[in-house]
C-alpha cells in the first residue's frame, strides 16, 4: 500500500509560537485517520501545511507522492476547513459551480455532480437560496458537499460534524464510511471522540506540536486481560470456584468482570463454566473508551513535560 500522506520531522513556527515540533506520520491509501489533540495542539496547522495553505515549514511533508503544497495534486484533494466561511452572496448551487470551475470540472460534470453531492448531504431543497440564510449545520453540510465535489482521492475534514444535529452526524458518518468503501483516504480532525471511535481506523494524538501516541483504535483502547462474561438468564456464576483458582472476578451489573493476571488466560474460565453446564451468552474483551484513553494520554503527556 502506498502512503497517501507522509510527514517526517515536520516543524512549523508562527513567529514565536512553535505550532509543530517534529511530527512524523504516515497514512496509507484507503485508511480513515483521525488526528486528535487539545485546542492549539497543531492539528489544523498540519492539514494546512499538507494542503499548501501554510508555508514556511521545515522537515518533510508529502501528499500523494508530491511535496506538500504543489498545485497539480490539489485536483485530487478535498478539504473542509474549520470555521469556514462561504461567500454568502452565493447559493449552494452557484458556489459549487464556482468551485467546480476552479477545479476544472466540465460543465457537464458540474451539472451532473452538484445535485448529486447536495442530495448526499440533504441540501437539495435549499440549493437555490443564498447561503446567507443557512443555519450552521446547513453550512457544514455544504462544506462536506464541496469537499466531495470533484471525487477526490484524499479528503481532509477539520471537525466535520461541528454544529450538525445527531441525525445529521450519523448521515455524515455513513457518507464517510461510503467514501472509505470507494477507496478514498480520509484524514479527520475531531473533538468528538465517540465519533472518531466509530469510523477511524487509526488515530494519532498530537500535543503541543508533538505526536505523543499513535496506533489503530483497537490496540489503543484495548485493556489488557479484562473480560466481561454474561450467562444465560437465571444462571449463577460459580464465584467461589473461580476465586479459589486464583481468578479475580467481580459482578458488574448483570454481568461479571474478570481481571486476569499476567500469566493467566481466559480459556480455562470458559472451560470451567461449560463443564458446569452453564451457557455463556456474552464474552468480550473489555475496552477503554477512546475518551478515557485520550484524557489519560494527554494527562500523562502533560506530566512528562512539566
Amino acid at each position, binding site marked *: 500500500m502506498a502512503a497517501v500522506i507522509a510527514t517526517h520531522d515536520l516543524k512549523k513556527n*508562527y513567529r514565536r509560537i512553535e505550532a509543530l515540533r517534529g511530527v512524523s506520520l504516515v497514512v496509507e491509501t484507503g485508511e480513515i485517520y483521525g488526528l486528535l489533540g487539545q485546542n492549539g495542539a497543531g492539528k489544523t496547522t498540519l492539514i*494546512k501545511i499538507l*494542503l*499548501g*495553505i*501554510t*508555508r*514556511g515549514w521545515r522537515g518533510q511533508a508529502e501528499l500523494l507522492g508530491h511535496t506538500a503544497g504543489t*498545485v*497539480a495534486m*490539489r*485536483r485530487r*484533494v478535498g*478539504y473542509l*476547513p*474549520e*470555521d*469556514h*466561511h*462561504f*461567500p454568502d*452572496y*452565493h447559493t449552494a448551487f*452557484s458556489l459549487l459551480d*464556482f*468551485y467546480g*470551475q*476552479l*477545479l*476544472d470540472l466540465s460543465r457537464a460534470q458540474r451539472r451532473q455532480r452538484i445535485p448529486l453531492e447536495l442530495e448526499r448531504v440533504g441540501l437539495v431543497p435549499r440549493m437555490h437560496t443564498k447561503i446567507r440564510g443557512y443555519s450552521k449545520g446547513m453550512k457544514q453540510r455544504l462544506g462536506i458537499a*464541496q469537499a466531495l465535489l470533484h471525487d477526490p482521492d484524499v479528503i481532509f475534514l477539520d471537525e466535520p460534524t461541528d454544529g450538525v444535529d445527531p441525525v445529521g452526524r450519523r448521515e455524515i458518518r455513513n457518507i464517510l464510511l461510503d467514501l472509505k468503501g470507494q477507496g478514498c483516504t480520509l484524514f479527520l480532525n475531531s473533538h468528538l471522540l465517540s465519533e472518531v471511535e466509530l469510523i477511524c481506523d487509526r488515530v494519532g494524538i498530537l500535543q503541543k506540536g508533538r505526536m505523543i501516541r499513535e496506533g489503530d483504535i483497537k490496540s489503543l483502547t484495548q485493556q489488557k486481560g479484562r473480560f466481561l462474561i454474561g450467562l444465560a438468564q437465571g444462571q449463577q456464576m460459580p464465584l467461589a470456584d473461580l476465586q479459589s483458582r486464583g481468578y479475580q472476578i467481580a459482578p458488574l451489573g448483570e454481568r461479571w468482570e474478570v481481571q486476569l493476571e499476567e500469566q493467566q488466560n481466559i480459556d480455562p474460565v470458559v472451560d470451567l463454566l461449560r463443564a458446569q453446564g452453564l451457557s455463556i451468552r456474552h464474552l468480550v474483551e473489555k475496552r477503554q473508551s477512546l475518551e478515557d484513553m485520550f484524557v489519560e494520554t494527554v494527562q500523562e503527556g502533560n506530566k512528562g513535560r512539566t
Partner: protein
Amino acid sequence: MRYLAILKDSLREALDSTVLYIMLGLSALVVLLVATVSFENLPAARTFEKVADGSIQLAFDLLKPDKAEEHSKRQLSGNVQVNLLELAKVRVVSGAPDSPDSEYTVTFRMRFSSKEEVAEASNNPAAAVALIEKHFKDIVDLGLLKIASIQLATQQPTAVARQLDFEVHTLPTPGTRRLWCARPSVFFGWLPIGEENWGFPVGAQLYVLTSTLVSIGSWVAILAGVIITSFFIPNMLRKGTVDLLLVKPIHRWALLLYKFVGGLTFVFLNIAFAILGIWLVLGLRTGVWAHTCLLLIPVLTFFFGIMYSISTLVSVLTRSAVASILITCGAWFGFFLVGTVHELFRNQIRIEETRKIPMEKRKWTDNPIGNVAAALHTVLPRTSDLNHLSSRMLYSDFLTGSLSEVNKIDLRPIEWNESMGVSALFVALLLGLACWRFQAKDF
C-alpha cells in the same frame, strides 16, 4: 475559463450589493438626460456674426485642453482681432438656406480709420484680404470651414464712409456642423436654455457638456469603483474563505491577478455602459459622432487600474477594505497634487525661460519644492496626464474633429509613451509586490 469563473464570482459579489445598481441607475439617468438635449440650428447669419467678431475663435482658444500656454509657438487668440469685421450679408450659393452643409457668400464689412486708408485698400486689397484670411485661419486650420475666395465686394456701401465690404466665399466641411451656432434645450425642446436668439457653435456646447459630465462622472465612477472593488480582495482573503480557494488547483498569483482583472472588468463595464450611452444618444440627437471619445473607456479603465493596483496591494497586506479605500484615495489625491504642482512649476519655468529672466532672479527654476515634485512625477503614475488626455479627446471630437488636429493647438509637452509606460510600470510593480506577498503568506 477560470478567469471567467472568478469574474463571474466578482460580478455576483458586486450584484449582491445595491451599490452597483445605484451606479448603473445613475449612469442610465445621466444618459437619458443627455438624450433629451436638442440643438436647434440658428440662421447662418448668427454663426458668421460670431466668426466676424472673433468670439468663436476666442472660445475655441479658451476651451482648449491646455490653458497655460504662454510659451506656445502659436496661439489661437493671437490671430484674432476682435471687432475687426462686422457681418453685412449672408447669401446661399448652393444648398438649403441656413444649413451648415451649404455654400455661402458672406459679406463682411471692415472699418478703416481714414478715407485715405479706404482708398488705398480698395486700390490694393491684398493686405486687407490677408487680414481677413488670418482672422479665419484658426477655423480653417481646424477644418471647420473652407474658404474658396476672398475679394473686394462689387457693391460697396457708398453711404457710409471709412468702410469696405469684402465677400468671402465659404465651402462646407464635415466640421461645419460643429461650428454652426445652435440654441440648446433640454427635455426635448421643452426647456430652452438662453434667450430667444442665443446660440453658440454646437461643438463648443457639446464639449462643455461632455467634459463637465466626464470630469464629474469619471470621478464618481472611479471613486465608486474603488469603494465597491475594495471589498473583493479582503473578502476573498477572509479566514475560512481563502482556505477554500487556496486548495484549488490554481496558483496564488493567478488567483490574485484574476481577481484584479475581475475588478477591472467590472469597472470597465460600468464605464463602457455610461460612455457608450452618452456617445450613442449624442450621435443620434445631434449627428455629431464623437468616435474619439470612445477611447475614454480604456483611458478611464486604465486610470482605475492604477488605483485598483494600490487597493490590491493594501488589501493583501492588511486584508482590510477600509484601509484600502483610505490609502487608495490618499494616493489618488497625492498623484493629483504631484501632477498639479509639477505642472505649475513646469509652466512657470518655461515662462521664465521664454522671458529670458536672468538665472539669479528666477523664482521657479531649481526650486526645492519643484524639484521634489519633479522627482515624484518621474516615478509616480501620471494620472494628471490621463485627465489631460481625456480633455484632448473630447476637444478633438467636438471642436477639431480629430486628434491630429488637436496637436496643432495643444502643445503641452507630454511624452505619451513615457507617461503611459511609467504608469503601467507602477501598476505592474504594485501587482508584483502584492503577488509576492500573497505567495508567501500563511493563512
